[in-house]
């Protein structure tokens, strides 16, 4: 949700108390790794689709490839670019700055997507989210929020020469090179749900989708790519 500064008085009001440290309840949400084999089973939003078996059985040729990047750490970061304690805190922890409008940054295992003028999505390996949130909270100040949504969404990668056609069937946003260069991120409608779409490469795209809609999106993508041939990667 964007928090547009549409009230002209707002900037006057934004007498940022950058020293304020919000008192929030950060919580470790994944089990601390127990002895091997003892860890509770985690099920990604598309666990039930058993993509690994589909990949083993499925066709090896086709114009579209699909893969779920499951069980990653997803942190929704909210804050104002006018708040240096927020902006600098992020840069200090991550080693790179928050991306600007509709842009993304990827470095090592971490990637961050601009979602809205006051919102970013940071994705890291699943077992790093808690510690990372802690360090961000430590170094950030003023008005900001961090929400761990690792269980609430998942990532699909769609690639291949016909991937863009599948996307064109699914969203009204303009996906042409001129409008959607590599690295761009857009949150938009996707069939009858929504997705955060990021272009990873000329023929490679990433969708961040909500958990409860994952099955619908999975059915939709299978259907939309049927005429081109869908290769599932486990």
């Amino acid at each position, binding site marked *: *949700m964007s*928090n547009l500064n549409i009230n002209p008085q707002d900037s006057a009001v934004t007498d940022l108390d950058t020293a304020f440290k919000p008192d929030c*309840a950060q919580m470790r949400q994944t089990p601390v790794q127990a002895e091997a084999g003892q860890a*509770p089973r985690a099920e990604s939003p598309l666990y039930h689709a058993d993509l690994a078996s589909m990949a083993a059985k499925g066709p090896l040729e086709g114009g579209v490839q699909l893969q779920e990047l499951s069980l990653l750490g997803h942190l929704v970061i909210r804050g104002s670019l006018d708040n240096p304690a927020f902006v600098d805190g992020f840069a200090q922890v991550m080693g790179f700055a928050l991306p600007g409008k509709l842009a993304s940054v990827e470095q090592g295992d971490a990637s961050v997507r601009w979602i809205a003028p006051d919102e970013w999505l940071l994705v890291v390996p699943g077992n790093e989210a808690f510690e990372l949130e802690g360090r961000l909270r430590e170094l950030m100040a003023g008005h900001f*929020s961090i*929400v761990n949504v690792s269980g*609430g969404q998942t990532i699909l990668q769609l690639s291949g020469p016909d991937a863009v056609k599948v996307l064109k069937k699914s969203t009204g946003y303009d996906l042409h090179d001129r409008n959607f260069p590599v690295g761009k991120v857009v949150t938009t409608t996707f*069939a009858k749900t929504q997705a955060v779409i990021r272009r990873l490469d000329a023929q490679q795209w990433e969708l961040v989708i909500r958990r*409860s809609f994952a099955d619908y999106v999975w059915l939709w993508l299978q259907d939309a790519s049927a*005429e081109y041939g869908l290769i599932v990667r486990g």
Partner: protein
Amino acid sequence: MTSSNHVQPNRLQNGGRIDRSQPVTFEYNNKTYPGFVGDTLASAMLANGIDVVGRSFKYSRPRGIIAAGADEPNAVLQLGATEATQVPNVRATQQELFHGLVAKSTNGWPSTDNDLMSYVGKVGGRMMPPGFYYKTFMYPQSLWDTYEGFIRKAAGLGRSPVENDPDIYDQINHHCDVMVVGAGPAGLSAALAAARTGARVILADEQAEFGGMLLHSDELIDGQPAQQWVSRVVGELVGLENVTLLPRSTVNGYHDHNFLTIHERRTDHLGDLAPKGQVRQRMHRVRAAWVVLASGAIERPLVYANNDVPGCMLASAVSTYIKRYAVVPGNQLVLMTTNDQGYQAALDWHDAGRKVVAIVDTRAEPTGACVLEAQRRGIELIKGSAVIEAKGSKRVNGVSVAAINASGERVTGNIRSLFCDTLASAGGWSPAVHLSCHTGSRPEWREDVQAFVPGKTVQKQLTAGAINGSYRLSACLEEGVRQGVLAAANAGFGQQSDDIVEIPSVDGEVEQTAPMALFHVPHTKPTSRAPKQFVDYQTDVTAAGIELATREGFESIEHVKRYTAMGFGTDQGKLGNINGMAIAAKSMNKSIPETGTTIFRPNYTPITFGAIAGRNCGELFDPKRYSAMHRWHVENGAKFEDVGQWKRPWYFPKPGESMQDALNRECLATRESVGILDASTLGKIDIQGKDAREFLGRVYTNAWAKLGVGKCRYGLMCGEDGMVFDDGVTACLAENHFVMTTTTGGAARVLEWLELYHQTEWPELEVYFNTVTDQWSTLTISGPNSRKLLSELTDDIDLSGDNFKFMDWREGTVAGVPARVFRISFTGELSFEVNVQSNYGMQVWEKVFEAGKKYNLTPYGTETMHILRAEKGFIIAGQDTDGSVTPMDLGMGWCVANNKPFSYIGKRGMAREDCVKPNRKQLVGLKTKDPQKVIPEGSQAVADPNQPIPMTMLGHVTSSYYSACLGHSIAMGFVRGGLDKMGESVYYPQADGSVIEAEICSPIFLDPKGERQNV
């Protein structure tokens, strides 16, 4: 039948663009006929000499093919070899022929050739003037059902299949810089010019081949046959990656913001069913920076007596059939024309080796080059005359020709009869302004071309070619190039210069002489007495009918249209509208511009429902949302209930159990031991920020200032009007951190509500909202044994009643997974809501069941949840509220704090005079006199069951169940002044005449002191 060798009586030996190496057969009205790939269904029907293709709507007159394109009003057929593949509303002129095509005529009852209605038509014709249906069938109303069935049966233009369509229809989105509509000479040159700038270009044309009229033209472009120019341009466009070519694609809608909808028929030309895996039809949804309309023009037929007899055709259509399909649709032609272009049909007919009886030119002294051409071929030319009447019934067998005066208003000479079987008429051209009209633009009349052309537009739209009234090929090509260059430049591509595409030259183009404006051919009798002169074939509107409408006082052309039904057919009056307006204008002594024109709406031609629905059907009709434990519910036999888009377990029947059996068992097990509910679907909103607490105080009716960390509180949310719209429990996670729960169906609405108020009213409050509905799986463990059960799964949460009180929450580990546990209760029992990250929801759920076996842990669904909460008198927002009840009406005044320093939403609303007046409807409990009787929800309360209808309604039942725990039925409902009527009886009359009596009581049926949950 191998009938490809059968004689096609009207097929020429040579010529045309059909593929003679691919003979096919098709079926029309249960007879098999031969044709070729490259034919349309219409050209194949004409080749086989099929005259009658349907019966007219009102008078049931035999009708034949008139046109060769989208303007065809009569040959609207039903296609489909099987029940599942039935397609209505197919214009034979636009359907490509394929082997095995099965077509039927639609509007003939009982059959096209022998039509019962024709007797009604002949006898009753005079009894069915315009407005007939309004005047006759409206009264008496009781007979409407009878009338309607008769009218529908008689008027049908096809039927829907009763089986599911096996084919795939889908939709795709596009963006482009220049969208070119129509691939005739203007469209092709526009597309090429724009494409060469590097702009993204989409070119769409409704025909299978690009080229438009050039496909049957003899003209030379750049010294070559026009068809070669077409091939060259199309060849270049195909090779450009910035160009998308859409043949067989009708641009059917031109909407706001240069958004266009295009209906592509991808496999309709291949067979009855799409080849396996292929999409039959695709709707392209195009957002264009600039649009060039090059949609051409439609020839106007002339309006004369009996102008609907099969064999009466458009002159241009005759040429098209001869040149493009090698079909001469008759033997002896009479051509009537008001202009030079019309002659071409007669020249083509003659050159095909068949007889042209005469050319009847309505102009007194035609002088164009065409006259010489006709004379050179020895064709008789009758000048200053008109065909005033056609003869014949199922086929033209002659015409009456007479001299007319210069203005075309009266017959001045004697009638001369000619024998012929085909009468072509050429009344000039009407630019296809339809798409321009879709955008709200009103067409403007141009006297010099005697036509309406696109008027002022608010869209980024250009026009080129015949749509502008530019009918000369050289003008079409030039406008195409210029507008293509301009559109691209406007979109930011190329320089606006001429050298990007050289304007092709047209050799030996002849100057056209002035046409005559003739919209209604006179007859010796007055219009009202003359044989019918049809203006709109599909809706059977005649010149006399239009004159009658104006005499009856309909002056606005829009009223004339509605009164006569002119233009209301599936063809939207493409042929007849201009003639009709001109006739109305003349009848009212007004000019055409004074009278104006009706405009067109999407769609240009009918679209299948399949293409409109796309893939949003079947499993994909609407998203189905699932919790992380859904698989378990399915495996354990749950019946599901739709709650918004969520699939929630409704109840879990065991083999042999009825629904009520299952509910009784689930309720008792929960109250006696322990039950579990998947509550993951409840909306959850994470709220962080310095002002989070203040914000809560403003959106909830109750107080939040003092809620401590580790505590939860129930809250009511009202609209500005003071009416309850959602409720839920919010927990204080930390001083600046809360998590709010909402109803399942209200989650998105509540989040939007919070954002709306934050962004528009209180942007100064430092708070962020994020949905975490999908993030947490919620397991509600409820019942006297819930503590024991949970204690087996956690070793780091002190569950004792002293240290973990009702409305507290604790963080810890459940079944090895980090969890937030809320001690809140919607059942009135000791109850814990365990929230774990959703990836672990299933794992924890399974572990709870492993440990719960010895407590007879029972899964329950939404229905048992409803019963258990109703036993406690807890409301469900949306079931017990309907946007018209205040907290006080619900007896929940305790949940309203009017002493908060800042106001809250709804405070003023609920203090309105009407909201505080006595005797409002209030929520109460209802105990039936017969304890086994469950009052149907929605039943209306009355004080006196014997009062005559209309009875005085006191309220209605909102929730009603059988309570196994209490051994009797329970209900909640609204009763006027109910809170002051405890112990009184109210009555609920039922549809079957019975009456259920109930006593008004407290809605808290069970454990009014709350002892069960406070243990």
